[in-house]
């Protein structure tokens, strides 16, 4: 079927819509033109056509964006809008969805404003963490504005009414025209060189965007950003926003409002002080009352009130105590007497004389045992000795000599044990068991080998 090659209107429309919505350029469109066919829907959405001489585009601004509009749009009005392009499917119509809309005719300034705002924001000059706190009670207030006109008058009136002690120092500047911005920037720097000042208000009255333009210049923004003093911007009316407002530490919607919050209300401060000193007095008073009560209470005590009674009572207590003491003493003494009797009995059982008797008997007994044992030991040793003497006697050489064996000695009284030790003619002494024979050798006969070995 050929119809397979055909797509539905819906699909085509969706495709075109997707193309538009994925295009970065189309999603951030800055457009200028004239309003026609303006219509405010009851629910707050705005519908219109934006056109120029040769073309037109449908436009819608939803209520959420429209509620911030500073003016009432109408047919024929020149406007600057910023928004995105998309497609309204039911009609197949592309249109611009407006996010922001300004009254036109000032296209160049509006763009310059937006561009500078973006640039400074990117530099961190609007960063809330860079904002300096305002002093609570400033005595020295600098004001950078025109020395004549409503702004300076409103500021003076408001500040002097609330806090007369504040001294105002005015730095007169041009607030309009080509020289205004350098003049304002120079005054802000000059104020910062004065060491007494506590805070600075920079302002001018309301006007068109061209009138306020000096406060949208970069040199003014820079001077505010560099300011050592906290800066309050009070430029134009409530709905006018300038770059100075974004850079300042605090924005006041009107000069009077700046005067309201730059100084405290003296009367309110006075009430705060009174409240504090009231509390101070009250707390000390309460303390004194309390301490006095305490003292009275102590003085009211029984002892202070009836000292006589107290003594009588103490007398009685003393008697009772004495009685207690006496009884306790008696109890103690009795107890000790019993202990003495018992100890005496124990002591007599252990008299030294009795112990001596017992020891003496023991000594006698031990002595008898000792003597008996020693005698027995002596007898045994004697018997042993006699046996030994008998054995020794049996072995005596005299006994052998008694059986006829003799000993021969040479003239040197050396025992002669061999014939080879003597020669004929040598003297010889022979020892018998009962005496000695002196003799001389006549001859020597050696025994035969065979006989010797016998």
């Amino acid at each position, binding site marked *: 079927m050929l119809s397979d090659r055909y797509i539905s209107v819906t699909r085509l429309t969706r495709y075109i819509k997707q193309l538009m919505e994925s295009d970065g350029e189309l999603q951030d469109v800055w457009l200028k033109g004239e309003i026609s066919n303006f219509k405010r829907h009851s629910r707050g959405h705005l519908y219109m056509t934006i056109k120029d001489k040769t073309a037109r585009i449908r436009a819608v601004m939803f209520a959420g964006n429209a509620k911030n509009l500073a003016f009432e749009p109408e047919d024929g009005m020149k406007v600057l809008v910023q928004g995105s392009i998309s497609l309204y499917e039911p009609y197949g119509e592309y249109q611009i969805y407006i996010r922001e809309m300004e009254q036109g005719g000032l296209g160049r300034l509006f763009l310059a404003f937006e561009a500078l705002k973006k640039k400074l924001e990117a530099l961190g000059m609007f960063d809330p963490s860079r904002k300096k706190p305002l002093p609570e009670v400033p005595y020295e207030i600098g004001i950078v504005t025109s020395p004549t006109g409503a702004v300076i008058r409103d500021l003076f009136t408001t500040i002097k009414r609330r806090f007369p002690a504040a*001294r105002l120092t005015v730095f007169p500047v041009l607030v309009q025209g080509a020289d205004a911005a350098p003049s304002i920037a120079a005054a802000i720097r000059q104020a910062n060189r004065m060491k007494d000042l506590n805070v600075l208000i920079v302002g001018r009255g309301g006007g068109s965007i061209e009138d306020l333009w000096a406060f949208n210049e970069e040199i003014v923004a820079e001077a505010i950003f560099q300011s050592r003093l906290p800066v309050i911007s009070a430029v134009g009316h409530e709905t006018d926003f300038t770059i100075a407002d974004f850079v300042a530490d605090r924005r006041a919607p009107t000069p009077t409002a700046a005067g309201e919050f730059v100084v405290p209300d003296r009367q309110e401060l006075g009430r705060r002080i009174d409240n504090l000193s009231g509390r101070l007095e009250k707390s000390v008073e309460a303390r004194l009352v309390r301490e006095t009560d305490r003292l009275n209470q102590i003085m009211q005590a029984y002892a202070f009130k009836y000292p006589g009674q107290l003594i009588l009572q103490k007398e009685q207590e003393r008697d009772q105590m004495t009685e207690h003491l006496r009884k306790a003493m008696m109890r103690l003494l009795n107890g000790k007497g019993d202990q003495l009797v018992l100890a005496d009995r124990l002591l007599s059982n252990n008299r030294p004389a009795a112990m001596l008797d017992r020891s003496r008997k023991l000594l006698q007994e031990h002595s008898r045992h000792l003597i008996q044992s020693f005698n027995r030991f002596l007898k045994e040793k004697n018997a042993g000795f006699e046996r030994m003497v008998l054995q020794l006697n049996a072995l005596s050489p005299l006994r052998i000599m008694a059986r006829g064996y003799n000993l021969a000695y040479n003239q040197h009284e050396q025992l002669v044990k061999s014939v080879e030790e003597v020669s004929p003619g040598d003297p010889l002494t022979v020892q018998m068991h009962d005496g000695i024979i002196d003799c001389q050798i006549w001859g020597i006969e050696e025994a035969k080998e065979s006989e010797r070995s016998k």
Partner: protein
Amino acid sequence: MNEASETDKNAVPTFEEAMTKLEMIVRQLEENDVPLEKAIDLFQEGMSLSKLCHEKLEIVGKKMDQLIDSSGEARPFSVQGDDKE
């Protein structure tokens, strides 16, 4: 360092410092654990601080409002009449 802290001590406190101190003293007395003698000292200090604060609010016109032109010259200044911008 020492000199600086001493001069700080002797200097008249600013309005904020006096207020803070006064608030501290009142709290201390209300919490009620100070010895009586100390309490009376604190009370006296508090009363003179309160007086000082009042004085600081009342000093008017001691210093004239001024205008400083671009060359740095100061001259007295006051707002007069209904000048239109």
